[in-house]
């Protein structure tokens, strides 16, 4: 799969020149696998660094850690290049590696209690949202937008890994449900039902704060707690 930014690159005036050198992801990975072709690997890194970093950021909620995870992902791709099945899509394999690393990271952080627990941690969820919402209302639009974004991120981090993975891949990375099923190795129906559950949980979490356009002074401390728990 070619990411969106790459599609836009192809539309520019250098498209013909660039396409002269372009090879598919699968061809590049085949070269990496059979010849340890560094140029082909560098090309894969350039194509996929952005999407993988976005995925890691959405999955962990930490942009700095996401950079490390992105590097780890590509290091693992190179180390495990012999395991790649040439009849499969490279992107599916890559997403899976990145997701596994994100989940490992998430569990490590949970063990170290750096993060609140997921669905079961209702009070923890509320405290994160309280903390995010306890700020003073911002007078200008951009700050308000940032605060809304922070609220959404906080709510997303309260979802379970399985729900968050489905939601991030479908909503933010725009993968089809069929492709997500391939990445997660579960039936497509399971992916869709998880998506419905994830959206319902996000709605329950965010409704009290974001229902009426701009955040209502972003003050949720007087809201009933059951609205904040999953």
């Amino acid at each position, binding site marked *: 799969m070619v*990411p969106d*930014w790459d599609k836009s*690159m192809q539309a520019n005036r*250098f498209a013909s*020149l*660039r396409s002269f*050198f372009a090879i598919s992801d699968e061809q590049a990975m085949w070269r990496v696998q059979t010849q340890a072709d*560094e*140029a082909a*690997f*560098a*090309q894969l*890194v*350039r194509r996929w*660094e*952005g*999407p993988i*970093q*976005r995925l890691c*950021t*959405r999955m962990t909620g930490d*942009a700095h850690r996401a950079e490390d995870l992105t*590097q780890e992902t*590509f*290091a693992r791709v*190179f180390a495990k290049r012999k395991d790649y099945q040439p009849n499969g899509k490279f992107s599916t394999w890559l997403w899976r590696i990145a997701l596994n690393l994100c989940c490992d990271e998430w569990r490590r952080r949970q063990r170290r209690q750096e993060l609140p627990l997921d669905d079961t941690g209702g009070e923890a969820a509320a405290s994160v949202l309280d903390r995010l919402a306890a700020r003073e209302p911002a007078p200008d639009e951009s700050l308000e*937008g940032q605060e*809304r*974004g*922070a*609220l*959404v*991120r906080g709510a*997303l981090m309260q979802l379970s890994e399985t729900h968050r993975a489905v*939601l991030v891949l*479908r*909503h*933010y990375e725009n993968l*089809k*449900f069929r492709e997500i099923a391939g990445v997660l190795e579960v039936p497509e*129906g399971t992916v*869709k*039902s998880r*998506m*419905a559950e994830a*959206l*319902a949980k*996000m*709605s329950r979490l*965010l*409704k009290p704060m*974001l*229902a009426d356009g701009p955040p209502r002074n972003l003050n949720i401390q007087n809201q009933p707690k059951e609205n904040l728990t999953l």
Partner: protein
Amino acid sequence: MNHPNPETWMSYLYDELKSHERAGLQAHLQTCPDCAAKLAEWQAAQKNLDAWRLPRAAQRTRVAFAAPVFKWAAAAAILLCAGFWEGRQASAAARVEIRQQLRQELAQQFHAELERTASATLAASAEQTRALLANYAAAFETKRIADNTAIVSALDKLGAQRFADYLSLKKDVDTVAVNAAAGFRSTEQQLVQLADSTPAGPPPAHPQ
């Protein structure tokens, strides 16, 4: 009324249905307030998700990737202009030759740039991997030395304990031997005394 399941609504929400399936669901929405409410809830969540925007990290990659392209494109434009001007002066055959040379040079330069970028990326990765391996090796060596020290210490302690046990046992055996020898001597003296103090009488009568 048969309600479509949530899985179907997800396909509707993310526009993964065929047109006739979509039309069927839209017709259902007109008559089913329950499904309409559920869909509105999902749509609200969907809309809220868009509030979390990332700083476009991908752009950095794109710019980094695009920069050499622009650089070489600028070089190519200059070369092409020079070539065009030169070509105007030259014959048709010379123009073809120049064009081919330019094409080859551009291709070589582009390849060289691609290889340079790839090598830089891999060199950085290799450097990081080497550093990680060095850290791991150092940690492993430290742990191994600590383990060896602990094992040697434990063995020394065990040996000392066994030697102390041996000495204690030997002392006990010696004590028993000395006590036994003294007992034998005492018994022997008592037997001698008993023999000396017995009076000499007539020999005992034997029955006929």
